[in-house]
Each structure stands twice: as C-alpha cells, then as structure tokens.
C-alpha cells in the first residue's frame, strides 16, 4: 500500500494507482502493519507539511482522499476495538472524574522508568529517533481542532497550544526544543529519515491523532486523546530527564523533558477540566468520544512503548 501511495504521489500525469478499499480491508491488524501505517501517514502528511517536490494540490486530490477513507475506517475500527470503553459522561464533572480515573494510576510507566534507570546511550538515542515522528510535529494535530469547537473549550485549547508553541518565544516551540535535542546528539532532524525507520505502532500513534484531528466528527476523541496524553506526561518526562543526566547527554536533551514536566502538569489540568469539561458541557453527546479518545491514547501509545521495551529486552536476552 505504501508503494502505491508513493507511486500515486510521484507519477506526474495519467492513471495513478492508489490503494483499493480491498487492500485496506485485507489488513488483519492495522495497528501493527507497517506498510498500512506508512501509507496512511503519507496521506495525512499532505495536510501538514507535504513533501519536497510533490505537487501541493495533491492534498485534496479526490483519488487520494477516496483511497484514504477505507484506511481510516480500518484504523478507527482497530482503535475502537483496542480501546473499548463503556463510559458516557455527560457533564463536565463526570468527564473530569472519568479522565482522572483513567490516567491517575499510570505513574512514570515502564518505558520512561527504563530510560531513566537502565537504558544505554544507544537505546536512548533509538528512543529519541523513534519518537521524533511525533515530536517534530508536536501539537500540530490538535491545532486542527480549534476551528471545530467553540466557547470556553476553544479558549482553553488556544491557551494550551500557545504554550506548546513557545508562549510567544519562537526559540521555545516544543517541536523546536526536540529538534535541538536531536541535533545535540548528531541525530538528523529530517522527519522522513525517522518515518522510514519507525515501528508500525509509532506511526499508528501519530496516525491516531490525525484520524481524530482531521475528522470533525471525532473532535471529542481528539480532545480526550490530548487530555490523556498530557495527564500521562509529567512523570515520564521527569524520569527521562533523569536518564539524560545519568548518561551525561548534552543539556538540550534534559531541557526538552524538563520543560514538559512543568508544562504538562499545567496542560493536564487545562485539558481535563477547561477543554474536555467545557466541551462536554457545551455538547453532552461528545462525552463518550472524549473517553474513547483518552482510552485510545493510553492503549495505542502503550502498544508503541511495549514494542520498544520488547526490542531492548530481546537484545538483552540475546547478549546473555
């Protein structure tokens, strides 16, 4: 499927082969299928930065949009199955309670604890390169949600995004801080380099955000996802910053994670109460989607973390 997308993007004229609905339906596990995730990632990327040398008009090419629809349906079905939740909060208070309950026990998590205490420099670099697929576009998916909501939830999302984008300081844009951390270690900051090597589950993690953010129908899920992401970020970031210091990495690496310890302690409260709470107060029918989005974040990002931990564990058992 990814080769078909590449051909469709690069063939200048004439008939362009695109992945068929059958191709999408034949994928047995979309979340772990790298070819599927890569194909979908490229289609989504047309809405973000596009690709050098590729016609920007292809963003709204009917053939590509038609090819994307069954792929999105397959991803959505897989995410819904993995993140099955049975909770339909309809007030701000119920939403806050549900999101807090879902995220409170997460702690630093196994992956961040491993990076903090045990990871080698090589493993730490692998982690940074893998996660670059998200962090080099950090917070961009959620910006697509701003024009799709109104009132206090919109104000709160704008406030959170302003902070993500550096609070008025271009040198503090979070994606830029991540790029500085990569550069300090001699790791390329070119997104495609990292996408080429990324695990299916890492691509699935960012594609899930795009799925929620680019479909207005799923705006509740996009914001629930944001809330769970922010609420499970401070403690892992503190552990990862410790790992960077333990390994004596350049200060730019710890700086990125230190920034997120404090920022995300704020963002968690904003996202749970002022964004998701206000959204559901305004549109009570979106409560179930908010919970779905939060559960999807925890489940899909959990899968992605497990894949990295398994990779390093296998290496360790092979060495012993």
């Amino acid at each position, binding site marked *: 499927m990814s080769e078909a997308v590449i051909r469709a993007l690069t063939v200048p004229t004439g008939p362009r082969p695109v992945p068929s609905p059958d191709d999408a339906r034949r994928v047995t596990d979309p979340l772990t299928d790298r070819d599927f995730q890569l194909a979908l990632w490229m289609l989504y990327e047309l809405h973000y930065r596009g690709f050098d040398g590729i016609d920007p008009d292809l963003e709204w090419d009917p053939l590509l949009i038609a090819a994307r629809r069954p792929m999105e349906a397959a991803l959505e079905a897989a995410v819904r199955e993995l993140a099955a939740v049975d909770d339909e909060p309809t007030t701000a208070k119920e939403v806050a309670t549900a999101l807090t309950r879902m995220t*409170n026990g997460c702690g630093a998590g196994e992956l961040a604890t491993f990076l903090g205490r045990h990871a080698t420099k090589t493993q730490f670099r692998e982690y940074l390169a893998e996660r670059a697929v998200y962090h080099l576009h950090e917070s961009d998916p959620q910006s697509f949600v701003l024009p799709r909501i109104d009132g206090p939830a919109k104000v709160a999302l704008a406030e959170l995004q302003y*902070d993500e984008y550096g609070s008025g300081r271009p040198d503090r844009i979070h994606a830029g801080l991540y790029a500085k951390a990569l550069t300090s270690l001699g790791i390329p900051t070119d997104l495609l380099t990292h996408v080429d090597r990324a695990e299916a589950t890492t691509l699935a993690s960012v594609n899930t955000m795009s799925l929620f953010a680019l479909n207005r129908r799923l705006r509740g899920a996009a914001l629930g996802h944001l809330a769970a992401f922010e609420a499970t970020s401070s403690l892992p970031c503190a552990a990862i910053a410790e790992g960077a210091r333990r390994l004596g990495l350049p200060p730019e690496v710890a700086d990125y994670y230190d920034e997120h310890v*404090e920022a995300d302690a704020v963002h968690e409260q904003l996202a749970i109460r002022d964004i998701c709470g206000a959204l559901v107060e305004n549109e009570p029918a979106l409560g179930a989607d908010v919970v779905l989005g939060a559960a999807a974040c925890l489940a899909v990002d959990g899968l992605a973390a497990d894949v990295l931990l398994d990779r390093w564990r296998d290496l360790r058992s092979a060495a012993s």
Partner: protein
Amino acid sequence: MTGDGRVTVQLCPGGPMLLRGADEVVADDGTVHPVGRPVVALCRCRRSQRMPWCDNSHKARRTDRADRADRPERSDEN
C-alpha cells in the same frame, strides 16, 4: 501577563493551583521565580521536586504505593 491585567487562581481538586496572569512567584525562602508561561501550576501537596511548581508528584506517590503493594516481586528483567 494577560492583556487585561487580570490575575486569577483556579484550585484543581486533588491537584495543583493554576495561576493565570502572574509575572512572578515568590517562594517560601524568598526566591523570586519569574513566570514564563500564560498559566502555571503551583504545588499544593508540597511533594514536588521542583517547588514552587507542580511536577505531578501528588500522583507519583499514590502510584509508587500501588506498585509496591501490587508487584512486590517485580525485577528489572521483567
């Protein structure tokens, strides 16, 4: 910080205090911490490692306790 000069405080149940529109926070020991973002979270549980800012340690403590109770045998290999 805010355009209209308003400073507001929001108390989060079981969590920090959100402070909007402040220019600086003076800590217990008199240290002045400049505020670099539109909203900051101030620690209320006094367990933060980054006082006066919240670092979510109020949650870590609960989690650590749960970890010890649930998985006492866990080793680094697993």
